[in-house]
């Protein structure tokens, strides 16, 4: 099995299984077209911890720590656990914030963008288009010598931080403590945060996805980047299979509902669906991979990816506290502002971080 996953067929086989797991989790209770959305679920975790107080999107999603732990276990088993870090961590932290701003203006990470298309949500086509443009801008910076610099070897224990944080989140989920009368941990009584697949199934799904993605290097941003930049379709086959299998599964489960209006956790503003994902696509490309890939690398011991994930968590809190996150009613009051600020930051990073020669 491992030979297959690490072969040229790995991404599309893993992508197909991931698509199936995503639709199954949504069918078992996760919000519509949100089998596992890294941005939405990280946002829900931020809410559960009280980093924002949007009462309908607070839940300690076990899929996210599952991804990190699945990757961690896989990297240990296959001797790929490699603690490393030190490649412009502060910049990566802010890139994580920017990526989350863009994702919450669009309402989904790149994984969910494809899942939304597979569910018939045509608003997401603007998001996928924006993602491609964001990746393309990132490619232009890469061709001009963009680099955040090399990371170095870290002590073995350094790579344990994100897995330990993941275990702590799972402990908080199962124990569900109340730290003060009106304080966290919060669990949404209504709204998307209240919709979830059974905990053990969601955790198992997360662990399997983490393992499959670690072995196959599945990356939704790398897929577009490598295709446009090198003509290499290796990773692109992964997202093609992911979307196709999710579509087929949705179709047979009666969850394929094509159209623009009334889509689950989505709005119909074309421009900001597009621009939100331009920002996300650019931030992810500058950081070297999509949000799922950042979780996987964090599990392998990459502290730079870990700090990017923490940036996403902080960005989610900021986006909701600053009324910048969108909702089904449309974009937030400050969604435009944070998108523009994020784009300016990313362009400055793209221009200023260059290796000569």
């Amino acid at each position: 099995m491992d030979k297959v996953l690490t072969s040229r067929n790995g991404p599309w086989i893993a992508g197909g299984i991931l698509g199936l797991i995503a639709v199954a989790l949504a069918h078992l209770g996760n919000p519509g077209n949100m089998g596992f959305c890294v941005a939405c679920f990280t946002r829900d975790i931020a809410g559960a911890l009280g980093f924002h107080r949007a009462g309908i999107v607070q839940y300690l999603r076990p899929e996210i720590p599952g991804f990190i732990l699945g990757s961690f276990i896989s990297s240990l088993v296959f001797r790929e656990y490699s603690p490393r870090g030190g490649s412009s961590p502060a910049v990566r932290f802010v890139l994580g914030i920017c990526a989350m701003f863009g994702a919450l203006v669009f309402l989904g990470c790149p994984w969910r963008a494809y899942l939304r298309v597979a569910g018939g949500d045509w608003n997401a086509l603007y998001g996928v288009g924006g993602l491609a443009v964001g990746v393309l801008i990132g490619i232009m910076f890469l061709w001009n010598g963009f680099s955040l610099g090399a990371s170095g070897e870290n002590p073995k224990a350094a790579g344990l931080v994100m897995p330990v944080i993941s275990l702590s989140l799972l402990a908080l989920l199962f124990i569900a403590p109340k730290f003060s009368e009106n304080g966290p941990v919060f669990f949404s009584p209504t709204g998307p945060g209240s919709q979830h697949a059974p905990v053990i199934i969601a955790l198992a799904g997360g662990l399997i996805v983490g393992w499959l993605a670690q072995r196959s290097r599945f990356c939704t941003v790398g897929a577009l980047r490598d295709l446009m930049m090198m003509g290499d379709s290796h990773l692109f086959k992964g997202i093609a299979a992911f979307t196709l299998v999710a579509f087929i599964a949705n179709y047979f489960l009666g969850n394929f509902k094509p159209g623009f209006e009334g889509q689950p956790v989505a709005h119909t503003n074309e421009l900001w669906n597009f621009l939100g994902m331009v920002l996300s696509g650019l931030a992810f490309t500058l950081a070297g991979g999509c949000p799922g890939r950042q979780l996987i690398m964090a599990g392998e011991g990459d502290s730079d990816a870990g700090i990017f994930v923490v940036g996403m968590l902080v960005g989610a809190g900021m986006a909701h506290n600053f009324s910048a996150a969108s909702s089904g009613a449309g974009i937030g009051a400050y969604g435009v502002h944070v998108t523009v600020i994020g784009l300016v930051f990313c362009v400055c990073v793209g221009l200023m971080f260059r290796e000569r020669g």
Partner: protein
Amino acid sequence: MSDIITVNASGLSCPQPVMMTKKALSGLSSGRVEILVDTATSRSNVSRFGENKGWKVSTEELERGYKVILEK
């Protein structure tokens, strides 16, 4: 025999190791190019790129990371 070209791509994020390999191979019709990378992902990416360009690929595990050897 021509000189060995060594590319140190260790510690760099995707897709920089492949870009550096591409640059090293440009205009080169034969020879030996060694690329140093620190992760299994970069090892696979550089190996696949070399194979796609018609180079014979072998890898060596180092104390930290890998050496991908491209020969033609």
